């Protein structure tokens, strides 16, 4: 069911190969795909503009559909049921197998289950975020969409005779009697096209399925909600940009936090704080290679600016980008559509805590921090001592700051606490360790004196000023990063206050105060999972388990989560699927299992 041509955000599923990714709608339309990389310009952008380009394969008669991922894979199976019969569509991005293959390859394989179903397909790419229609050519009988040095070749087998119409290629055919049709979209950027044979594409599809099953089979998680944890691990693996090891926050830009509003951001970057959660989750799941790769990327990316850190980095490790507006209509009229993210210029002190927590977890995971890295971390710890008193824009990147955010101060405490502990182990230089410990104590004293409200019996969003005390869901992180006694009265009071003031049904708002932007937003799903984790650390395991069960039940039909959810309608909001939510899910499952 589409509204004004737009599918619900929860109607999408993600496929990918660790370099590029695509969103497939429940009705068989691929509405988002950037090539050749996750953060490249789009070739399909119907997600953000009905004229932005799409690749549709669906019954040509009324249908209902159901979906699943093939077990332990990132290969999507959509089953279409019609009055004429049933067909099954397999969607995947194949992985290279060492033989000559297209630079990126998207395979769509269709199989008749029963009856004879009339099918239609339409391939209408629009390059450079929908701004440029391609020039279509035919090479060796294969339709090819060309734009500058980019080329998309659509090989098709048993899928009718293609015709060119309205800037796209389309066809109709009947799928029945156990027939199998197939499409292979081969892409090339600045190099010659490789046109795959059907046998090669089918072989790569099988090998890709085996790779995902082997990879998922290596996950080390035993505990409740194992299916949700495995699905989260699989989607997180798709968000790790394999050429560099960086982790994208989401594969999309500008899916709105408020339908029709301006809260639309580009998440195709690697945030320092997300990397902390990512490394924690990867270690917990036994993905040592990915954790090590991300830590190496982390230390390389920060090399130019250290001891100062940027909030986010490009997936290739660069920092040179600015926020621009794209000429797309936006999801259901939600514009602007952004390219780039201006949060890069903000001061956000919590990222220093994220870096040191990452280093600590990495070290705890029996990966010794080498001497050179230790020297760099020592310089960064010294920098934290110099800057922790400053106000900042905080974890939520508010646009009306800066403020003396409590969470930021606590994360500076985390930075210096972990630095001192690593120094005690000999993994950081010990020269300034006493200064780090003294400043960590000073931060704790500041938080306890200025960021606690007797009135609401909770830590507050920011250091208390003239106004009434405000709450913020980021305070749920305090027990998760080891600040204070997780079962003590102050943490208990803070959790209770969040439940009392920010919880709406099963979900949690991040805050209820002005942030410099217009419009309302939904409840943040990662905050809801943080609440489950905090409850577990607080000893309220039953309460945490109940909440966890409810939250996992609110995933879409293939187990994915967006950044936010509308607490009234249950519709997803914001970029999709979002790494931070799946990371919070994994870490909450582990926290509850361990507490139980």
């Amino acid at each position, binding site marked *: 069911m589409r509204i004004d041509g737009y599918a619900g955000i929860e109607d999408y599923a993600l496929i*990918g*190969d*660790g*370099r590029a990714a695509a969103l497939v709608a429940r009705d068989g339309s691929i509405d988002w795909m950037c090539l*050749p*990389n996750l953060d490249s310009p789009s070739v399909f952008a119907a997600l953000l503009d009905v004229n932005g380009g799409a690749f549709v394969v669906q019954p040509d008669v009324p249908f209902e559909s159901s979906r699943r991922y093939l077990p332990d894979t990132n290969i999507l199976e959509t089953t279409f049921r019609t009055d004429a019969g049933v067909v099954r569509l397999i969607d995947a991005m194949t*992985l*290279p197998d060492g033989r000559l293959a297209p*630079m990126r390859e998207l395979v769509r394989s269709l199989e008749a289950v029963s009856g004879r179903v009339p099918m239609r397909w339409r391939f209408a790419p629009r390059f450079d975020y929908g701004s440029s229609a391609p020039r279509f050519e035919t090479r060796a009988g294969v339709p090819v969409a060309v734009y500058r040095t980019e080329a998309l070749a659509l090989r098709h087998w048993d899928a009718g005779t293609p015709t060119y119409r309205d800037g796209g290629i389309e066809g109709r055919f009947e799928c029945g009697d156990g027939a199998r049709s197939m499409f292979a979209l081969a892409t090339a950027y600045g190099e010659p096209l490789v046109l795959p044979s059907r046998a090669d594409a089918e072989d790569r599809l099988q090998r890709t399925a085996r*790779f995902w099953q082997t*990879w998922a089979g290596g996950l080390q998680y035993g505990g409740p909600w194992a299916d949700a944890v495995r699905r989260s691990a699989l989607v997180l*693996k*798709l968000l*790790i940009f*394999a*050429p*560099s*090891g*960086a982790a994208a926050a989401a594969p999309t830009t500008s899916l709105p936090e408020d339908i029709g509003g301006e809260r639309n951001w580009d998440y195709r970057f690697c945030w320092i704080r997300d990397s902390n959660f990512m490394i924690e989750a990867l270690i917990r799941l036994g993905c040592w*290679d*990915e954790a*090590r*790769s991300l830590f*190496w*990327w982390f230390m*390389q*990316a920060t*090399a*130019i*600016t250290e001891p100062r850190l940027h909030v986010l980095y490009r997936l*290739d*490790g*660069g920092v*040179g980008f600015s926020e621009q507006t794209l000429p797309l209509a936006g999801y259901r009229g939600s514009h602007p559509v952004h390219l780039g993210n201006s949060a890069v210029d903000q001061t956000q002190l919590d990222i220093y805590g994220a870096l040191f927590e990452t280093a600590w977890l990495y070290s705890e995971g029996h990966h010794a921090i*080498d*001497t*050179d*890295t230790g020297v760099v971390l020592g310089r960064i710890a010294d920098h934290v001592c110099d800057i922790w008193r400053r106000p900042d824009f905080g974890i939520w990147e508010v646009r009306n700051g800066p403020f003396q955010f409590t969470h930021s101060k606590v994360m500076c405490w985390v930075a210096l606490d972990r630095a001192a502990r690593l120094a005690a182990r000999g993994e950081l230089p010990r020269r300034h360790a006493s200064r780090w410990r003294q400043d960590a104590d000073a931060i704790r004293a500041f938080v306890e004196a200025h960021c606690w409200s007797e009135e609401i019996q909770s830590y507050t969003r920011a250091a208390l000023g003239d106004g009434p005390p405000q709450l913020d869901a980021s305070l749920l992180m305090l027990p998760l990063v080891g600040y204070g006694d997780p079962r003590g009265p102050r943490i208990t009071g803070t959790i209770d206050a969040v439940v009392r003031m920010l919880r709406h049904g099963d979900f949690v708002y991040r805050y209820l105060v002005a942030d410099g932007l217009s419009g309302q937003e939904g409840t943040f799903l990662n905050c809801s999972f943080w609440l489950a984790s905090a409850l577990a650390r607080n000893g309220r395991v039953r309460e945490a388990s109940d909440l966890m069960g409810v939250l996992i039940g609110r995933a879409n039909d293939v187990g994915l989560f967006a950044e936010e959810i509308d607490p009234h309608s249950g519709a997803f909001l914001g970029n999709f699927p979002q790494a931070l939510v799946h990371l919070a899910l994994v870490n909450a499952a582990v926290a509850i299992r361990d507490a139980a």
Partner: protein
Amino acid sequence: MTLFASEVVGGFAGTLVLTTMTRSASELGLTRVDLPFLLGTAVTENRRKAKAFGYCLHFALGVAFALAYGAFFDTIGWSSWWLGALIGAVQALFTGTVLVNVLLPIVHPRMGTPDTAANEVTLLEPPGFLMLNYGRNAFLVSLTGHILYGAIVGWVIRL
């Protein structure tokens, strides 16, 4: 000084200046290019050992390139510092577009390439075209360093 000796001395001195310059640029926050580190991590994952190996390998390559410069000068029958600088500029261009952008990721066991997919895990990001993944100034630093290298080699190898 024989031609061979001057090539060795010129190559060593030029590499010394090139390495010092890129290291200084890195310390000044201009680039993340660290050629010894890139070369050394092809041998070991240990960062400190990698840098030690890398420096040795980088100096060896510097001398090898100086031998090639010397052969070229010998072939055309003359040399000068500015001709060396010109060849250094070409070498920087080759390094940024082909050597570390295309060839190094292919042979480096721990470096990703644009084709690296989910079924591989790498430790080093590829440098990218003109090494721009390592910072916007990466190529300028490399170009300046290689021009200085070429000028020194051209000046030392006086035919």
